[in-house]
């Protein structure tokens, strides 16, 4: 995933967002794509093809996990990957989809 900018990091790392428990908006649906054999996120007039980690992140966007909680969960499961790299992936992805109005909470 693309490196996120300093500005984007600031957006998600202030005090308020430490307690943010993102929830996927009900207007977006996570579904399996049989054609390309990967998950995709479908929402009005658009679809996002997802890589391997994005669906895992989205499954944890249940209104209960904080960002750190999501990072902890993934770091526990994807052994051998640097936690900071996972955190950058998570925050970058969530910032992008938050901008598109796909996250609540």
């Amino acid at each position: 995933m693309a490196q996120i900018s300093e500005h984007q990091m600031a957006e998600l790392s202030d005090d308020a967002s430490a307690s943010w428990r993102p929830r996927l908006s009900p207007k977006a649906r996570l579904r399996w794509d049989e054609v390309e054999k990967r998950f995709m996120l479908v929402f009005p007039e658009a679809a996002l093809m997802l890589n391997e980690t994005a669906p895992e992140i989205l499954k944890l966007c249940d209104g209960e996990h904080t960002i750190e909680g999501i990072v902890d969960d993934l770091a526990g499961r994807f052994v051998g990957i640097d936690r900071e790299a996972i955190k950058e992936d998570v925050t970058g992805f969530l910032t992008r989809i938050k901008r598109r109005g796909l996250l609540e909470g």
Partner: protein
Amino acid sequence: MAAPRPYTLVAELTYKCPLKCLYCSNPLNYHEMRGELSTEEWCRAFTDAAKLGVVQLHLTGGEPVVRKDLPDLIRHARSCELYTNLITGGTLLDEEKLLLYKECGLDHVQLSIQDTDRRTAELIAGIRSYDKKLDIARLIKKVGFPLTLNVCLHRLNIDHVPALIAQAADLGAQRLELANTAYYGWALENRSALMPTRAQFEHLEPLVKEARARYEGTMEIISTKVDYYSDYPKPCMGGWGKTYMVIVPTGEVLPCHAAQVIPGLHFDTVRNLPLTNIWEHSQGLNAFRGYDWMQEPCRSCPMKTTDFGGCRCQAYLLAKDAAATDPVCSLSPQHGIIREAIAEAEQGNGSLIYRDRKNSERLSARSQEPVPR
């Protein structure tokens, strides 16, 4: 070469509609198209579309709510995992229908708004509709659907964009489409009354940019251009027969709403052949896939993979040649057609031709040859 993977099916369930909007993209001769597909025929098409890779289904028309089998169609589409969007004028809706559609699995509703000003809105739609639409917008939200408002922009309402944005935000729309009218069908007939001036159009861009930033994360604002005022053409539908398919009420599978105006193309109907077969082999769908059909200047142009030479229907309607460069392109040898159309629009005259049966019959009786514009 295998046909491209489609993502979106626009299902025009019917051409019946209580509204008579001046900008309607339905064909001028819609009244001739009898014999709508049955429930089974549509359901089979949805199943096949999902097999081909379609993920987005737009249920539209005319007015799709006219179909009594709409709940069954929604249920079936949902069972195929299609993301379903109801595109409606809203005037035939009520809370009971909305609740039923939700129960059947409808994901999203798009409601058309003609203007924030009641008089102008009803002048455009041709019937009393303003209050009902606002009531329906509130009901759509109350029932719990994500709501997109679609406003076709043209000379009569383009100066009201700030009010339109505020109204959309007030109604809790999560998405607002400011769709500058594209000139096909009824919109083309009404072009001299509808086309905004260049100044009006250019005033829009900073307004929309500012609003986008202001509403980021809460309301997505999409706007499409008046291609007559661009130097290069739009990549129409993302390419002919590429990511979008339109199925009309009688089942013909088209690359877009307007393609039946082009003579010499044959479009198969799902009434006779499976959609999976049609998408791959239809003469009409294959006519402008790839780049071999292109003439100069498109053929050697580096932009051809970006904009596909623009719109085939527009090339036919304005320049009488579906394979020609879209005249809106500044590199088109026929770009003068566009300059004349703009000059004509600047004069601002033009009677209003409403989309109704009487006008459809009258226009169909007229010569089939497009008048040079």
